[in-house]
């Protein structure tokens, strides 16, 4: 009966979504709402269709920044978590720092990086993405590495297993779910950071500048269309993270 349960999970949000769009369309039409306040869904769709090549180009530019930053942040975050799980001092320095950084708008650092590198470089944005990705990966992976079920610890001790063997056989696999929680957050954060850092000036490539220039030109339906593309990009990254999790942990039936 899995098809039935999928259907029953899917129809309320789909119905709501359709009703919402219909209501939106009717409201704009009936109340004669101007486009700079709220464009019609159909107008947005038209813009998506007509400008899809330009929009795709901008999406790809932003996606590249997000991908590169994600890769760098992932690697650094994992390494840091592995090191911090062995070196107490590193852990004690990085974890409070991570808590502080979670409160700070990291994207505000973009102007600094823009001066440090050339402002025609993509590196400032990628660096911001890497920082935004580093912390969720670090925090969650570290949490996973720190935990070991007492019964597994005793079992390994009874096998006279070395600390490295225990890490390899028990700690690393049990840290996987925590890593993937971090990956889900990191993937979304990568796209968000990539888009937002584009609002801080620098290169004119990417979704952020496209949105601002469309808004400045009062082409609001087009601006909304580009926002939709940004949302789609974020969703794509998130779904990729979910897929990676499903593939890497076939023994788990549900995601937390």
């Amino acid at each position, binding site marked *: 009966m899995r098809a039935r349960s999928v259907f029953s999970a899917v129809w309320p949000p789909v119905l709501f979504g359709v009703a919402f769009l219909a209501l939106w369309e009717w409201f704009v039409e009936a109340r004669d709402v101007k486009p700079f306040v709220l464009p019609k869904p159909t107008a947005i769709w038209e813009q998506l269709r007509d400008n899809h090549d330009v929009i795709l180009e901008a999406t790809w530019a932003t996606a590249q920044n997000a991908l590169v930053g994600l890769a760098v942040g992932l690697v650094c975050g994992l390494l840091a978590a592995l090191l911090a799980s062995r070196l107490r001092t590193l852990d004690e320095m990085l974890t409070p720092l991570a808590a502080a950084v979670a409160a700070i708008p990291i994207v505000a650092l973009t102007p600094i990086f823009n001066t440090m590198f050339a402002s025609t470089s993509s590196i400032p944005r990628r660096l911001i993405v890497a920082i935004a990705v580093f912390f969720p990966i670090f925090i969650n992976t570290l949490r996973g590495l720190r935990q070991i079920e007492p*019964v597994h610890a005793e079992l390994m001790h009874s096998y006279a297993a070395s600390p490295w063997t225990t890490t390899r056989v028990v700690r690393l696999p049990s840290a996987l779910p925590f890593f993937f929680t971090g990956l889900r957050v990191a993937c979304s954060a990568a796209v968000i950071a990539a888009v937002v850092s584009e609002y801080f000036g620098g290169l004119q490539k990417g979704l952020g500048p496209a949105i601002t220039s469309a808004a400045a030109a009062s082409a609001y339906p087009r601006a909304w269309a580009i926002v939709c593309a940004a949302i789609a990009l974020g969703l794509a990254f998130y779904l990729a993270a979910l897929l990676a999790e499903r593939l890497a942990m076939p023994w788990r039936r549900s995601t937390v």
Partner: protein
Amino acid sequence: MSVEPAATAAAAVNLAGVGKTFAARGRGSATEALTGVDLTIAPGEFVSLIGPSGCGKSTLLRIVADLVEPTVGEVLVNGKPARRARLDQDYGIAFQQSGLLEWRTVRGNVELPLGLHGADKRERRSRADELLALVGLEEFADHRPSQLSGGMQQRVAIARALARRPALLLKDEPFGALDEMTRERMQSELIRICAETSAAVLFVTHSIPEAVYLSNRVVVMSARPGRITDIVDVAIGERDEDVREADAFFGAITEVREALRGRRVA
């Protein structure tokens, strides 16, 4: 690498004057968990430890397993100090939680101790299949632990404990989380398995019928401080299903119960 049974001449377990005091934590005072424990377990013998909470039976088991160090006394497993016995992998252990690794298949879990000590792939697999057949789970070899019931998971844990043909099996209330019917079935299974492997067993439980059904001897302990108060010989013949309803069985249960109450006349 061949997996040989350990030498059987020495006693399986020899405890002399073993005591354990846990240091005071915070504002509490030091706890004397065990004191003056003397016990010898012969090769192939099945011995249960029974007693109220706090009598130190789990601690004693962990001392034999070298997971806890005794404060005083000598612990010999297979004629060697406990630490050496652990490093030589002379015993297999099963806990109340089956402790199966959820990311490995059932076979993978049974292969765990073999893989840790260098058996090659083919050897591991054939030994694992042998053990799963012994506990009656050969069809589930490729399943994941989460797909098995509690009783089946415990059977996998037992198979895993037997992987390296140890001379001694240590069990800490392995059936504690199971319902009564499953427990009785598992007890019969355990007897059958132990008969085929001729390992000595040290079994911690708080169920009197379980202790009597499984053991050659039942070691009765009491708390504050933890110590052995009595040892009851259980001589009720062959352990089959009919024994559970025999008078001799109930007589032995009464003996153990009286010993637990401290009223037994030896």
